[in-house]
């Protein structure tokens, strides 16, 4: 269904409404990002028995404003060996998609302003969710080009990691989105939200089984380069990763993009799996309740993101690739088949599910047996942790190993 705002042609009022919507969304997102930085630092310090920022403004609320001001007045360095054009372009490539991605998220219901039916979202293109996937791919370029154009080795390593990681997880992310699209019969985010309306058991998180949501959560975390998938930044091993050479305002843009992505991805997760602005309302201030529900759900998701960050250590690179290619992609692909099967006929769907579970169990067993053969298959192959341990024990204590 096309955007009802344009149903009666494009007049001055329509243009004004569109501009107002864009400006309001832009400002709200900026403020939200500022608060998100504060929120993240506060929550994470809660979890670490610290106090967190409490100097600037009440409860330290203005801390991010102070940090931004500081960065703004710092010297803007351009490395000698940097590619000057790309180096300047990269931060914009990170920020602009972060902004634009939010445009398709429905933040509220439908209101009527001056006889115009207005959907409370910046835009409702018919290919909405594809727009999201496309932009999250563009955001990869921001990270990748930033590292590449710095002319420095650690940023380059960071950008290589980032590109491999983001491309890997994009597949899983896309497949889970496809399951949502299958269930909702539309690519438009407004239609996706409406298909989940009225009852919480109609939310996609329950309708599709929990699996696509879990995969989406993991894959989107990886897509955003947030811990435990922040290998592209890796302070401990890469000294900051792709943004090492950035300073001043350009660094601030990366920082902004990172936190804006957190909000946007939380909002998208709410849209795709938790019914967006759906929730019980009351008869007064009818336009307000959906917005309140949407904001509440998004805040919960932001909290979960911070919780994940506080709990999990950074993954090793091979573990990251294992998780992406060997687990998430097969899982989301299999689940997509099951969902498609259920839509065709319930019997077929559950047959597929059963076959999938049996197949996955067999595959897992096979891998395990193979791995055990490799590990205990002794010294000739030289590989494996167990073999190494056996040798180590033998060196340390000849009696115990029985040799």
């Amino acid at each position, binding site marked *: 269904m096309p955007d009802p705002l344009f149903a009666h042609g494009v007049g001055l009022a329509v243009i004004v409404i569109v501009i107002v919507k864009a400006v309001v969304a832009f400002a709200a997102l900026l403020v939200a990002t500022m608060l998100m930085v504060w929120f993240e630092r506060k929550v994470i310090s809660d*979890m*670490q028995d*610290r*106090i967190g920022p409490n100097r600037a403004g009440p409860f330290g609320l203005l801390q991010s404003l102070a940090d931004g001001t500081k960065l703004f007045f710092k010297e803007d360095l351009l490395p000698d060996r940097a590619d000057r054009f790309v180096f300047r372009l990269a931060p914009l490539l990170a920020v602009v998609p972060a902004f634009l991605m939010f445009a398709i998220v429905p933040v509220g219901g439908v209101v009527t302003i001056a006889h115009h039916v207005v959907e409370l979202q910046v835009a409702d293109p018919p290919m909405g969710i594809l727009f999201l996937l496309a932009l999250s791919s563009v955001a990869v370029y921001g990270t990748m080009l930033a590292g590449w154009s710095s002319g420095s080795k650690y940023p380059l390593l960071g950008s290589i990691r980032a590109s491999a990681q983001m491309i890997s997880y994009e597949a899983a992310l896309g497949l889970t989105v496809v399951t949502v699209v299958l269930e909702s019969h539309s690519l438009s985010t407004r239609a996706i939200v409406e298909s989940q309306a009225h009852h919480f058991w109609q939310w996609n998180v329950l309708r599709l089984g929990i699996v696509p949501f879990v995969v989406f959560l993991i894959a989107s975390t990886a897509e955003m380069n947030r811990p435990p998938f922040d290998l592209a930044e890796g302070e401990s091993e890469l000294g900051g990763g792709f943004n090492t050479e950035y300073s001043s305002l350009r660094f601030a843009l990366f920082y902004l993009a990172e936190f804006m992505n957190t909000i946007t991805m939380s909002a998208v997760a709410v849209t795709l799996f938790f019914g967006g602005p759906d929730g019980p309302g009351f008869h007064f201030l009818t336009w307000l309740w959906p917005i309140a529900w949407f904001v509440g759900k998004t805040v919960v998701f932001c909290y979960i993101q911070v*919780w994940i960050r506080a709990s*999990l250590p950074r993954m090793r690179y091979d573990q990251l690739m294992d998780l992406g290619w060997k687990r998430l992609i097969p899982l989301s692909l299999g689940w997509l088949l099951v969902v498609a099967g259920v839509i065709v006929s319930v019997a077929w769907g559950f047959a597929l599910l059963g076959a999938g579970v049996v197949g996955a169990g067999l595959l897992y067993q096979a891998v*395990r047996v193979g791995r055990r053969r490799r590990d205990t298959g002794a010294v000739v192959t030289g590989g494996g942790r167990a073999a190494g341990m056996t040798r180590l024990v033998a060196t340390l204590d000849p009696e115990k190993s029985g040799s």
Partner: protein
Amino acid sequence: MGMFDDLRFFGGFKVTLKQVLEPRVTRQYPKEKQPKPPRAHGRHVLNRYEDGMEKCIGCELCAAVCPADCIYVRGADNDPDAPTSPGERFGFVYEINYLRCIHCDLCVEACPTEAITESKLFEFSFTSRADAIYTKNELVVDDDGMPKHLPWEDWRDGEDQHSSGWMRATAANGAAQYEGEVQWSGELGYGVRPAEAGQSGRRDDEATGNISVRTASRNKIPIRLGGRVR
């Protein structure tokens, strides 16, 4: 190796969520301070007798023993009509360079008249090398026997009490049979202080201003051991 071994790391989520309810360990430092240990070494004071005379006799033993070489003393003969200290000589010049001082307290040990002692103040700073050299003007206690409060020093209420750092469990000569016996002179502002507790346990904490180590570090000791930290 179970199939769900990989899921064990979700235990971390429980840990972090539990920590939200735990008390914060951060302190708002300049605003709230931990009590200082009773024998903390801080900046020096030059004490006076109860009649206002200076205790320092200019013997330079402190300067001699100082491992950091930060004390400079010159003695001079007392004016017989208006003596600065009882006896023949007095400390004419007394300077301590706090860019060198390591607060080892050896000068306090060496002093034969208990003239130099250390307060517990360590929160002071300077903006020039000249300011780091404390002279008699800064070091000698005022007419109430209290250390002088200099603008760049962070004294809080009560911190100048018991600042003479005087804390001998046994007699000055360290012999066990003199434990609990007062063998030192009185000082301006405090009088003759009673002895601290020694091995036999006779003590008067209120009079000596002694804080037991356990009390002072209560905030670091878990509740199950009688402290305040969970």
